[in-house]
Structures are given as structure tokens and as C-alpha cells.
């Protein structure tokens, strides 16, 4: 058998692209991706919310898809490409999604915001001109207990419009 078995207490060396940069770090097999992001990579923009795969506060984009990073093992991201909220802005400019949350006041306490923005990122990659219903469905895995979602939906609509009118954001950068 050629397969490599990582023992339960092994420190597995992981190498992945994080927000466009090559990063390495160690994780034992049971370490969740969200803890790897926060504690090993030191990127604390990704939040731990419910820890039970419900709230979506830990949402990141892994290999092009928005996922709950509390429901993925870090070892599964080995060799992959990860985008976290820290990777949205470019050259000191807020990403249109971030700008939308700022302009439309899409947050109150801010705890759900990074996850909301990464779910919105996934949606707008696939569907640049979503209807309100499509936006609401796309963020149905992300809980917000402050806003009632109205301003979040407006923020994503703002971002969609801005991204359509400024194609420079569509290419590269992540």
C-alpha cells in the first residue's frame, strides 16, 4: 500500500495558498480548519460562532467554494487555496462587498459579518446579478441576530452593482 497514514497525534505539515500567499503550518488530524486559520495562521477575522455547523460565522472560501471552516479538518485544506475576509481588500481598497457593508450599514455587532461577506463572495462569483430572493437564499446558512438581514441584503445588492460596473475586481486578486 502506498497511502500515507498520519497517526492521530502526528503534526502534519500543511502547505496551502492563503489569500494569495503560500503559507505553511502544522496541524494534528483532528484540528478544525477554523482553529488552524485563527491559531496557526493568526488570521482572526474568521470567527468561531456556534461550533456546531449552524451559524456560518466561520465561513471561508476553500478552493472556490464557501464552506463552514468549523466543519472541515485543516488537513483537508492541504495543497488547497483559501480565501478569508483578510484577503478581500486589495491594495488598501475595500472590496466592493466590504464597501457595501460599510455604505449600507450591513452590520451592528459585526460578529457574523466576515462569514456573511464570504458567503456573498461565493454568490457573486457564480451569479453577478442576483435577485433579492437569491441573495436571501445564499445567506441562509449565515445567522445574524442583530440586523434582521434587511441591511445585509442591501449591502450585497450594492456590492453586486459595484462589481458589475467595475470589472477590475472580477479578475485576479484572490
Amino acid at each position: 500500500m502506498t497511502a500515507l497514514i498520519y497517526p492521530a497525534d502526528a503534526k502534519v505539515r500543511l502547505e496551502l495558498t492563503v489569500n494569495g500567499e503560500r503559507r505553511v503550518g502544522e496541524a494534528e488530524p483532528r484540528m478544525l480548519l477554523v482553529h488552524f486559520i485563527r491559531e496557526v495562521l493568526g488570521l482572526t477575522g474568521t470567527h468561531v460562532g456556534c461550533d456546531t455547523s449552524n451559524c456560518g460565522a466561520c465561513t471561508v472560501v476553500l478552493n472556490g467554494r464557501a464552506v463552514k471552516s468549523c466543519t472541515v479538518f485543516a488537513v483537508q485544506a492541504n495543497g488547497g487555496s483559501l480565501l478569508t475576509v483578510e484577503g478581500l481588500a486589495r491594495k488598501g481598497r475595500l472590496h466592493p462587498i466590504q464597501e457595501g457593508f460599510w455604505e449600507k450599514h450591513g452590520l451592528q455587532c459585526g460578529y457574523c459579518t466576515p462569514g456573511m461577506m464570504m458567503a456573498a463572495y461565493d454568490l457573486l462569483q457564480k451569479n453577478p446579478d442576483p435577485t433579492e430572493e437569491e441573495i436571501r437564499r445564499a445567506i441562509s446558512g449565515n445567522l445574524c441576530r442583530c440586523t434582521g438581514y434587511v441591511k445585509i441584503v442591501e449591502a450585497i445588492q450594492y456590492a453586486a452593482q459595484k462589481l458589475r460596473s467595475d470589472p477590475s475586481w472580477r479578475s485576479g486578486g484572490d
Partner: protein
Amino acid sequence: MFVIPDRFSYTVAHSVEEAVELLHTLEDSKVLAGGQSLIPFMKLGYASPKSLVDINPIPNLDYLDDSGESLKIGALTRISRLCGSELVAKDYPLIHDAALQIADPLVRNLGTFGGNVCHADMGNDLPAVCLAMNAEMVASGSSGQRVLAAEDFFVDRFTTLLAPDELLTEVRIPKNRRGCGGAYLKLERRVGDYAIVGVAAQLEVDDDGVCRSAGIGLTSASTKPIKASEAESWLVGKSISDEVLDKASTLAMNASNPLSDIRGPAEYKKAMVKVLTHRALNLAYKRARGGLS
């Protein structure tokens, strides 16, 4: 509160053969596919396998292929792919309905068809779909490949017919022909929750509206996914009417044996099986009569 899984050894399979060999060799191993049920189970301490075999790197297990006699769905096909597939939306509305109601978009991005059925939670949605559509489950193990009927596949709560060293590789769904229609209805407390109850209905009718075949699968209606066989056979040969659907719904309700839990008392769930079965059959019938959409 940190919810940390117990320690396990981790290994990656790059082929079905390698996965089967690993499952055969390793002690107390589980397959890691989308992980959207297994990882929460491990975090909550419901499951503590000694080793995981990650099958995600296996190439060519993520596909929808309707070029042959059946619709073949690769075990690693993500639920999100079913949601976005025009083929599924147009020709297999029952599967499409169910896929769109599984958890939420983030979970659907990773969750797989194979994982949803193999986890065999009574509250998972795709087992009922497989039962209603008389799917075949293709499994590979140390002693070769075998094809299992969906009806035999779901043995008990979280238990399938698969041996510990067997891997589900494909699900085959009989092709929808003209006159076929299906629907999946799910009663849930909120988006993303497991079903209070769910009903998968599949009908084939002739030009006069007479039922040629019927399939009914029930979610959260017993300790395992179940097929309402009496209701199915009662429908065959009948001209579909409200009375006929009502009788079939009663038979489906009688086949159910739900548990009382946080989602409601058993009596309520039984009553809802009847209501949802009637509505799902009605929608399936409309779709069967109106072409496949």
C-alpha cells in the same frame, strides 16, 4: 466552549481500490466524504472513529451521467451541483426539490450525494428520494462490486447494508420517461433544519391519467428512511383523483412510525405525513401530466 473531536489517524485515498484497502486494513475506520454530518457527529462525541479515510481526492467520482439506461450519480457529487444542474432541474424534479432543501448553501457546497445516503440518518432527505425512485446503490468492497436495491440498503438508524470495508461509488436512478413526475416536500422548523417529516413522491401516469407506477419515500417518519410500499401498490392501475390520493396518503401515514422529539410529537408527525404525501403526490401528478418540468 470548544467542541473538539477525539483523536483519529488520517489517511487519503486516491482511488476506489485504495480506499477499500484502507477501510479493510485500518481498525475502526470511517469514510470522510463531504464531512457535513460526520464532522458534527465527531465534534459532539456521537462518533469517535479511530481512523478516517478521506476519499475527496479520488478523481472521477463526481458526475451526473444520463447517457445510458439510468441517471448515474457519482458518490462524491456535491449537493450544490444537483441544485445547479439543468438536467436535474428539468428531468428529475424530485431530486432537485430535495437537493434545494438540504441544510444550507454552505453545507451543500461540501455535502455529497453518497454521504447523504450512507449516513442514513432518518432525517436525511436523499434516502427517501432513493426509495421513491427505486434507486440502485453501487458499492465496491474487498470482494468486488455489488449493486444493492435502495429498499434493502437502509437497514436501521445510521446503518446501511454496506460492509465496513465497502464504499458506495455510484447511485443509479431509473430514467424519467414521458409521463413521469416527482416532488419532494419537507416540513421544517426553519431553513437548514432536519425535516419534521418529508415526503418524496414519484409517479408515472399514462395519457388517461392512470397510474403505471408509484414511489413514496418518507423522511423522519420512522427510525430509518422508509418506503410506503402499500400506498405505492395501491396507486398502480388507479385513475388519479383526489379520493385516490387521499387513500394513498392514509396508507403512507399508516406505514409511518415517527418518534416524538424536539420537532414534535409522534401524532402530529403522522398527521403531517398524510398531508405532505397528498400534496407531494398531487404535485408529482401535475408534473407527470405537464411533461417533465
